[in-house]
């Protein structure tokens, strides 16, 4: 795969940060607020002074007004591991540019945003099973490794999202932000995998990618459709009625996926490969608070 991403685009991403909706539990200081009080600039609450508290956090103004020693507490900012999971099954090779190329560019861009925000970012590619993972790490050197891993792999094999996500959950010990990029054509199902992610405390964001030809096919005539993952085929005399039915079936598929994610409170973005990544970042991701 060749991530479709340019330096100018990365420069525009350098001011963005990934955000999470919940407080993180990590022990390490980072850019994401956690549920623990700690040291940061974000004020959390007052509490009574206890012996051993740091004198620097005593609010002397409050002492002057109330004649009580009160200590200010702040939101503890902890780091958040970001797991970028990309579907690399054979179905991702459809389209021009292919969904896999588009997904690799998107994964690289999200990883860059995370690393610029001092997050630890890992990359996990999967098809039927999980490919060799790149564990989370901090620093721009990780960016280079992510690029190498993306360029070295090619879409292949069938999709089994449940199995792959199960392997992922088993392989990581720390919950974090999971960004799942896929076309979600997974014959074996996906709900178990998503539930497994949520059970392990991951915050999940989904990016659903389709090719423009899949959204709005224009071919007509007698066509043999071959499933690129299974090799099975079906021959159809395609006409307007056929295409209309196809669009209805695709809309149902997308609606079912969106409903499934919504029920699990998973943030979902949908895009096609002809849409610029910059548009996706600045119109969808920022609008819906995924990045800020």
């Amino acid at each position, binding site marked *: 795969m060749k991530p479709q991403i340019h330096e100018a685009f990365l420069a525009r991403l350098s001011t963005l940060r990934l955000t999470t909706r919940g407080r993180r539990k990590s022990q390490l200081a980072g850019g994401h607020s956690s549920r623990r009080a700690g040291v940061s600039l974000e004020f959390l609450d007052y509490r009574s002074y206890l012996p051993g508290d740091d004198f620097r956090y005593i609010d002397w103004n409050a002492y002057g007004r109330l004649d009580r020693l009160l200590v200010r507490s702040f939101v503890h900012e902890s780091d958040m591991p970001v797991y970028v999971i990309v579907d690399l099954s054979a179905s991702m090779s459809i389209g021009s540019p292919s969904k896999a190329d588009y997904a690799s560019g998107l994964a690289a861009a999200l990883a860059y945003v995370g690393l610029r925000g001092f997050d630890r970012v890992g990359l996990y590619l999967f098809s039927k099973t999980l490919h060799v993972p790149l564990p989370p790490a901090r620093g721009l050197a990780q960016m280079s490794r992510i690029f190498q891993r993306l360029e070295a792999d090619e879409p292949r094999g069938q999709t089994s999202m449940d199995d792959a996500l199960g392997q992922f959950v088993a392989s990581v010990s720390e919950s974090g932000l999971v960004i799942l990029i896929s076309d979600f054509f997974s014959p074996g199902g996906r709900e178990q995998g998503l539930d497994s992610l949520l059970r392990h405390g991951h915050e999940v964001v989904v990016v659903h990618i389709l090719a423009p*030809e899949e959204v709005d096919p224009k071919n007509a*005539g007698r066509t043999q459709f071959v499933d690129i993952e299974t090799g099975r085929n079906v021959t*159809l005399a395609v006409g*307007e009625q056929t295409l209309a039915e196809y669009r209805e079936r695709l809309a149902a598929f997308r609606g079912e996926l969106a409903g499934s994610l919504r029920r699990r409170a998973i943030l979902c973005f949908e895009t096609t490969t002809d849409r610029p990544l910059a548009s996706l970042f600045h119109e969808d991701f920022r609008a819906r608070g995924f990045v800020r």
Partner: protein
Amino acid sequence: MSFLHPAAFALFASAAILVFLAFLRALTRQQAVSSLALWAGLTQSPERQRPQLHRWADPLLLLQLLALAAMIFAIAQPQRRVEQSALRGLVLILDESASMRTEDAPEVSRFSRAVERARVLLSENPASRLALIQFSSRSHVVVPPTDDPAVIERALDGLEPSWRGDGDESDLLNLVSAVGGLDSYDRLVLLTDRTPDDLPASITTERFDGGRNIGITAFTVRENPSGPGVSAFLELRNETADALEPRLTLRDETTSMTVTLAVGPEATEQYVSPFSSSRGSRFIATLSVEDDYAADNVRYFSLDRPSGLSIRWIGEESLYLRAALESVVELRNAEPSDAADLTVVVGRTLDELPPGNVLLLASDVRALYRFVDADRATSGTAEADDPAHPLLAGVEPQGIYVETVPETLFLVDAISILRVGDVPLLSLIEDRGRLLFVFSTDLRGTNLPITVDFPILIRNLLSTVARVPGPLVHEWRAVGEPVDLASSGAVRSIRSPGGETITPESGRTLFIAEEPGFYEVQAARETRTIAVNVPPGESARSLLPVEPVRSAAASTSSQEVTRRLWPLFAWIALLLLAVEAGLYLRFDASRRIG
């Protein structure tokens, strides 16, 4: 256009296979999709279930058919006959030596004919590579290799024959190598009036000769050893079949003489012609004759002669002696401040001698000799003490009668030349590098002044004391030969026969004369006159055997050649297939899902 294998056109039937395959391909197209679940079970369109071509105007099919047509044309091997010159290259070599000035036809020189012939060759033989060389003792490339005949035409317009001699064949071959070599040209034509030696067979020679010629092939001038003036030595070559009696005119700066000579048919004759009245140093021999090569009818010669003799008289001037001296050399009186070439003392007794050579007539010098006992003066016929002495060359002493001669007592060594009895009449004393001629009596006391021996004796005397005749110094060059300038010191200027003044570059030691006539070299130490002549070898032309002119045009006419066109069609087919493949790949990618 014709075809070697027209049967190949039957392959056009295979176009039906292409159309059929295209039809089959259009029946069912294959398309990869991400998931068959979206397509399986969809309602099919009845109107699409009938077999049909997707698009009749499928550009890929059209390209395939065009490529097939091009391949079939290539297999049929089309060919076209085109008219094309056989020449890849043509080199024109023009002899520019002086003999090419010969006007064999009225007012038309061989060189003009050669130039016209060159133009004809140029027009009849269109070639991709052309060059023009002039051939003489200084052969040179006039036009280096070019593909533009107009360049050669313009160069031919400006060509003139030179006055130089024949060229060297090896020089010519070097020049041919310089313009690409023999192998680079199909035809090399030498237009000349001679038969060159040892030229490669690939160089065709076309001869221009014939005509009548008689000319001076050698001309030189020497001092007359036995009298005044000079003698001219000439060689005449008559190349005609007739005996001729041309008139020869010899002239120097001031005087001229004409003689009539006889030359047999096809003969070479040598002549010696006295030119006793000449006192000049520049000689021109002109042959008055009607022939076709005028360049050898005039020859030039330069002889370094003394310009005169300075003389000083002491005592009464002898008119006889002056007349005798002037018959030999131009006299001028020496300036009082200058030493004279010869001092003549008449009837004086000197205590001290003047500087330089002295002729003493009836005069004595006390320190050297004196006349004694005048009463014993002797008379009679003169006799030679040494008849072989140079002073007596051509002189017959017995014809000299002396009325009276005194006896002379010499105090120094003296050589007696003439005597009367035992009394010296003419004696010679060598005194510290100079000569003293002692004539013991007055000329009026002898018959010497009225004898034929007197001017001879005086000339011999002057030959001894002065440079008469002078050393044999002459300057003779042929056109194209180098002249050494270094021997004259720094050369200021050179004046050509046409009057043009040439200033040579500083340090230049050689000068090449390019036209016949007298060149005057003005140098620091002297002024030299150099006679330049047309090379004598240029006169020997018309008697050479005439070879038949080989026609270059006959073998270089244009011819039809067959040009095969199958590679062109093969390339077209490949190009069309490449375009078709490119379009297919592009369309194929877009058709996967669309």
